[in-house]
């Protein structure tokens, strides 16, 4: 009896959950999905923040510049995030 198997083993490698689905997604699709989720969360946050700023500091000169800086900074960071992909 030969102790060393001569035929390929029939055991499949460990499969992680959703690995088949994940491998089917291209990097471009993955980036698009992640960016869409981040963008939706960011829009909701920004709307809520703007509501609070404009409602509770309406007389202040800081509200609009603060929101403008927030949007500009977020846009710049978003550009950094996608700058490596063409």
């Amino acid at each position, binding site marked *: 009896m030969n102790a060393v198997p001569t035929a390929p083993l029939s055991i499949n490698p460990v499969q992680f959950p959703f690995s088949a689905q994940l491998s089917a997604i291209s990097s471009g699709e993955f980036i698009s999905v992640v960016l869409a989720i981040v963008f939706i969360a960011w829009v909701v946050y920004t709307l809520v923040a703007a509501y609070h700023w404009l409602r509770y500091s309406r007389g202040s000169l800081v509200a609009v510049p603060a929101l403008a800086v*927030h949007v500009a900074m977020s846009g710049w960071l978003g550009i*950094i995030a996608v700058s490596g992909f063409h």
Partner: protein
Amino acid sequence: MEEFELEPGEIVTLSVRKHWLVFLVELLPYAILAFVPLLIPFLFSMLTQVAPGVSTVLTHAPDLTTAWARFGLGLWWLFLWVGAFNTFTRYYLDVWVITNKRIVDIHQFGFFRRQVSIFLLAHIQDVTTDVSGVLPTLFGFGTIHVETAGQEERFLMRGLRDPEGLRDLIMREVALLHDSGKLGT
């Protein structure tokens, strides 16, 4: 301010926020976390020098110039920026408004959680300031406690700039109210 309306003859004497240093200290964790990813290549090179066996497991040094690294960095910094802006929002919307008749204590605990307390100067019994520590003493910020008569209520705000000046201002307004005979005593 929409939380309260000024009564006839009422004027805002002072609006006061926490000291800017308190705000900077609250921002510090975000600044540190922003630099953490940039330290990873240095940590990797140090680790491979200390423990050469690591290089057999981690064959490539992390390269932050790749597209995926930039993607991760950009999102990480965006996440931190939102947190820092949130801190600034809470800092700015947290305010004490002192008028010639009352003190309005506005606390913004978070979005959709705002507490507004109004207490009349006529009910103020005791104002205490507490400046303790090196930084508060050097930069002039601390805690102010205002105790009102009868109800054993105690309002406090931490990290206020110039708490002694604020205490003097409150007591001056109380004295003016007393002199004008509007205290009802």
